[in-house]
């Protein structure tokens, strides 16, 4: 399925700029702006810690959103009654080790590492560390996220508790 990247199709610098931009939008809770960086068929997955390579159709994930539910998730996250995220957590995302690993048809396959620090009042800092597997799509409006898979390294969510904000 994975084909090599055609010369000149996309550069790592371009992908890095894109990933830094969307991470910045999430850290600033510009969720509608972030949503605009997704395709209309986008999906977002957080696999369970014990089955990081699982398939959400047969495996219970932590998050497995199609675009419909992802839009609803963002409605929820903006609602003051989203108690787990009100007031919104302060997050800081470090994105690194960005690699373009191939193509799947017109989709650009990108892997990257992340470390997200989440701060809330009266709570210890919670660290979410793992890797992204993205499928990006080049559109007239620039790169967009077609699929986002945030794979956590930890053996269990444990002290991370909930995944109530977007990874």
């Amino acid at each position, binding site marked *: 399925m994975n084909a090599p990247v055609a010369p000149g199709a996309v550069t790592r610098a371009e992908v890095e700029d894109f990933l830094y931009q969307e991470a910045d939008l999430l850290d600033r809770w510009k969720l509608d702006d972030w949503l605009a960086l997704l395709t209309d068929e986008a999906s977002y997955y957080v696999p369970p810690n014990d089955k990081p390579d*699982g398939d959400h*159709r047969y495996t*219970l994930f*932590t998050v*497995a959103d199609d675009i419909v539910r992802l839009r609803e*998730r963002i409605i929820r996250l903006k609602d003051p009654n989203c108690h787990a995220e009100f007031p919104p957590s302060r997050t800081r995302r470090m994105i690194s080790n960005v690699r373009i690993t191939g193509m799947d048809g017109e989709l650009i396959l990108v892997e990257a590492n992340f470390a997200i620090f989440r701060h809330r009042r009266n709570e210890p800092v919670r660290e979410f560390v793992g890797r992204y597997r993205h499928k990006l799509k080049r559109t007239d409006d620039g790169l967009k996220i077609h699929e986002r898979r945030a794979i956590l390294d930890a053996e*269990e969510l444990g*002290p991370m*508790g909930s995944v109530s904000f977007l990874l």
Partner: protein
Amino acid sequence: MTAPHNGNGRLVVEDNENLSFSVNRKVFVSDDVLEAEHRKIFDHCWIYVGHASELKQPNDFRTRNVAGRPVIFCRDRQGAVRALINSCRHRGALVCREREGNARQFYCIYHGWSYNTDGSLKGIPGDDAYPPGFDKQSKGLVPVPRLEHYKDFYFASFDKNAPDLATYLAGAKDYIDLVVDQSPSGRMEIISGVQEYDIKANWKLLVENSVDDYHLVTTHSTWLNYMRNSGVNITPAKGHMLPTKGFGKDLGNGHLTTDNPNYRGRPVAKWISVYGEEAKADIDAIRKELVERLGEARAARVADTNRNLCIFPNLVINDGSSVTVRNFFPVAPGHMKVVAWALGPVEETEAQRARRLHAFLTFYGPGGFATPDDVAALELAQQGFAAYREVPWSDLSRGMGSSQEQLATDEGHLRVFWRKWSELVEARP
């Protein structure tokens, strides 16, 4: 005054004359209380270990924490289900470190003692140095004192004199049956993928929260919005807080459940718009099979009610938007670990399984639309308990004195838990 100034030293105070029911918040913060719970509850009750479907083949194993003990839940070479204490008979190290797998033996990395999957000792390196009379036969892994199952749900008791499991489960059996009846062959399975997360709150708060329908409208308004946005009717029933009027029930022996007419959809078998139009015919077919097998009345009982079941002390089976099996245990007064699975009929097609898992994640779990807000509520309660000396009593009197059957939005079923808790922790010598 609805709460007593002092409970004469008691932690759970029920006053049926003045219609008050109070729980002293010390039960959520005290190390002494937690120690008493370990000794008087977890050392005596039947504690959930796992489901038979998790051990499909001989020599399959899963490692678990059961009542604070490291346990290997496994199927031995002959196919018998076992629960063995995961501690080397020599000097104590865990003999199985993996979460799950298939192994012909358990092996201690410290000095190399090895055990068969039925627990018997297999080998000791350099065993010629042991004194005469050293009995290798008696040096197998120690099984939990009691291991029994009800319809593939395995429980252990560390009290060898415990009543049998079926007696212990009392009325909870009927509600397990309602779950199991969803499978044409009566076989349910734990679906791959586990959710393991911590809550910085006392474990008993999750018992309450799992069956408390009073909190739904306030804690989960964003989930209700999502349902409404998806075309589900969430208008409260006349004179009621929720779309349907449900009940809270005492199942005996400290077990309790909610029992609610469904409005939120059920993979078996009640279609809602969230599933999509294309799922309608499939849900109809599942329903038809239910009716043919169980009859109209029983099929409706299975398919049209949601039930959040709590098996005392720490197992919850929520049969609602999907089925979740949720086990939790204390690591400190203000800290619990939760382990949650999805359960489904073994016969499900790919599409049905995918729908079940999708429905699960709309509500349940650390990434769901509801559970994170439950966690937030429980952690806020725990933070409030820091002032337990100044504000010592929690109120659980809702619904007391009502001449009607207790509603799921009342607290009658929560009082069932607390009475049992009090009986074991406060009354036992």
